[in-house]
């Protein structure tokens, strides 16, 4: 009964996704409430003459005196109703507004670089596997391994400096913007759909996206290469060759489709990796996305932002994995249900 078992698998996976999301929310709550430090001290100046009423007001507003279980219940309720509260630091702003605005920029950055990474990484890996042991394969593997072990933040600093100066006095060297999301000095901080602003956004995107792409390119190309090499030793490839297909035809019609299965799993897994990379890149390029906001929230002990930023990241990873699982079941009928 293939249909029946597929439905059971889907049901089981969906339940697992719900449990995982619930687990993320709970662990997140526990971690954040175990942090030392008093957020009140960060919100108001350390002034002994401060009116106690003001402090009490803040405590009431953010419900800081409630017990832990009470806060947990309130937190669960608020999480699911979308009432995410206001930030401690940017007190007039709703957390949900802050996060949804940041999310736009992070999605732009992560999306652009993921597309580039996948296209380039798969091409490099496939060509390396196709001409295994050749000059291209050797050099691309060596370069990939080098980039694989490179801290992304370090590469970001190097690129930032490289395109913010004229190395060796070359005055034709291109200069690229190395901070912020668009030219906020000229156009103000509000994004509008105007030609100049869109161009400025794209210009400001080049360096962060390039850093992120090159930093995660190595993982993709190495996995692509090894999974293709794996496939190339299978018997059906030999059969295909025996039929008289050319190398390219074998690659296109037999090796690539079968080599794609590990790639899909990798893409889902690498979402978490790309998010970690985006944190570092956003921090160095002052790119106002989720990572930038999270790091600042940690240093400021801004719990409301921190709680939901982590949840958004975790849920994105869970959903990406879920979609990849479904795709794999759809593509590869051999996959057994674990």
């Amino acid at each position: 009964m293939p249909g029946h078992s597929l439905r059971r698998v889907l049901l089981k996976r969906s339940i697992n996704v719900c449990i995982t999301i619930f687990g993320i929310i709970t662990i997140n709550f526990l971690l954040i409430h175990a942090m030392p430090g008093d957020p009140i001290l960060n919100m108001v100046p350390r002034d002994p003459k401060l009116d106690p009423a003001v402090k009490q007001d803040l405590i009431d507003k953010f419900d800081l005196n409630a017990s832990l279980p009470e806060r947990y219940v309130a937190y669960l309720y608020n999480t699911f109703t979308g009432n995410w509260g206001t930030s401690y630091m940017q007190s007039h702003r709703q957390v949900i507004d802050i996060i949804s605005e940041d999310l736009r920029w992070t999605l732009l950055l992560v999306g652009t670089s993921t597309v580039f990474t996948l296209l380039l990484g798969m091409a490099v890996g496939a060509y390396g596997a196709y001409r295994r042991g050749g000059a291209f394969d050797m050099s691309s593997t060596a370069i990939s391994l080098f980039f694989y072990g490179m801290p992304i933040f370090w590469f970001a600093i190097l690129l930032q400096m490289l395109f913010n100066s004229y190395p060796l006095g070359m005055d034709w060297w291109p200069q690229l913007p190395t901070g912020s999301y668009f030219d906020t000095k000229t156009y103000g901080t509000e994004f509008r759909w105007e030609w100049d602003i869109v161009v400025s956004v794209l210009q400001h995107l080049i360096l962060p996206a390039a850093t992120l792409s090159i930093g995660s390119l190595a993982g993709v190309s190495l996995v692509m290469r090894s999974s293709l090499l794996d496939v190339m030793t299978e018997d059906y490839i030999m059969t295909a060759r025996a039929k008289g297909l050319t190398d390219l035809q074998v690659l296109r019609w037999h090796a690539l489709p079968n080599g794609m299965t590990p790639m899909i799993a990798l893409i889902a897994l690498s979402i978490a990796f790309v998010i970690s990379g985006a944190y570092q890149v956003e921090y160095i390029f002052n790119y106002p996305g989720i990572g930038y906001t999270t790091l600042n929230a940690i240093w400021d002990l801004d719990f409301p932002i921190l709680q939901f930023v982590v949840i958004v990241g975790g849920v994105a990873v869970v959903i990406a994995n879920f979609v990849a699982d479904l795709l794999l079941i759809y593509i590869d009928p051999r996959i057994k249900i674990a």
Partner: protein
Amino acid sequence: MAWCVTSKRGLAVAPILLIGMFMAIGLFPVTTAQSLPPVAEAGPDQTVCLGDFITLNGTASTDDVAIVNYTWTFSYGGLNRTLTGPVNSTFKSSLLGAFVITLNVTDDEGNYDTDTVTITILERPTNILKEYWWGFVIIGVLASLIAFVYLLINGYITFVSEVTREKSRLLVKRSIGLTRELMKNKMGAAGIIILVFFGLLAILGPTLAPYKIDATQEGPFAMLQKPSSDHWMGTSSTGFDIFSELLYGARISIIVGVFSAIIASILGAVIGLYSGFVGGWKDEVIMRINDVILSIPWLVLMILVAAMLGEITLSAIILIIGLTGWSGTARLVRAQVMSLRERQYIERARAIGSGDWHIISKHILPNSFPLVFANTILTVAVSILAEATLSFLKMRPMGTVTWGTMLSYASEASAFHVGLHWWIVAPGLCIVSLVLGFTLLGHALDEITNPRLRRR
């Protein structure tokens, strides 16, 4: 003596009076400007080691007048420094060479005396036993292990059975074979060469470094000096020599990477083994927890745990990386154990009545060990990167120098703008090469021990 002349009788008295006067002068001391000078005694010459305390134990003897002050004058390499103070002073020797110290004692009538003492300060002879005791322990353990194995193989130790001897001979043969094969594998050989280089750097780095570094204190040099012949890569914003910091960093970076990878691997292996072997609802629960940990991006999880701990020490960093990094290994080991569990030889072992513990220790552990080992090597690489990233994001281990903290300070001081390019480039390159070494070795091990990969 006018009255002597006027009185004839007085002529006879005068000599007596004169004699009396002289006698009086001789008998009764009269304070005059010409009192005796004090005698200064600066003490014996001394020879001490760098860092020892020197006690200047001067004495001064004098007649009844009080001594106004004692002055010690230090001359060292053409410099003179004067110190007015107590006659006994204690100093910490901080410079090498000979000091000529002059004690000057003055009394309240302006008389003075000087005495000179020479103090030679020598380099402290390195107490090899004290500084590298761990090296001797390791060498000792290794030597006794080798001796034991040698005796075992050649049958000098009689209490082991023939089977054990044969087994250990096989083990030695196999590990020699593995090493030979690693060196034949291009990636493995490159990895081993890189790791040997960094291993030597980790052991010898602090000895080779031109300046000593104590990161718990302020640096001794002027901050942010440009590279010069004294400081090859300049000095940092905390006043340390950057090249020395680089050499010191190797040891800590490797320690952090290796220890946190060991913690993560042991945790992951035990959890994966248990989960895969028992199955059922326990496996479900563990895997759901594992899912949660894998879903929160690792960096974010580490930052949250680090923020929770507040003050971060070296061991805290190791624990943070180790305790958050086990889930990948656990999943890998679980999959391996689940596939092993269904093999026929396990079924046979069960059929002849082997217990769980016997099956795990005799069949499952030996078969999953190569996988765990290769994975541990790869985890070391990831852990080194994790430490660098955490340090860079201001979660720095206190009082230590790692390449990550160097990069963090360099970026805060915008090293490129002040002309200290090496400050950013060198630690980054070191991290990349070290990680590369572990990655190469891990992949090569994986290729050799995993028979499925070996085929191609």
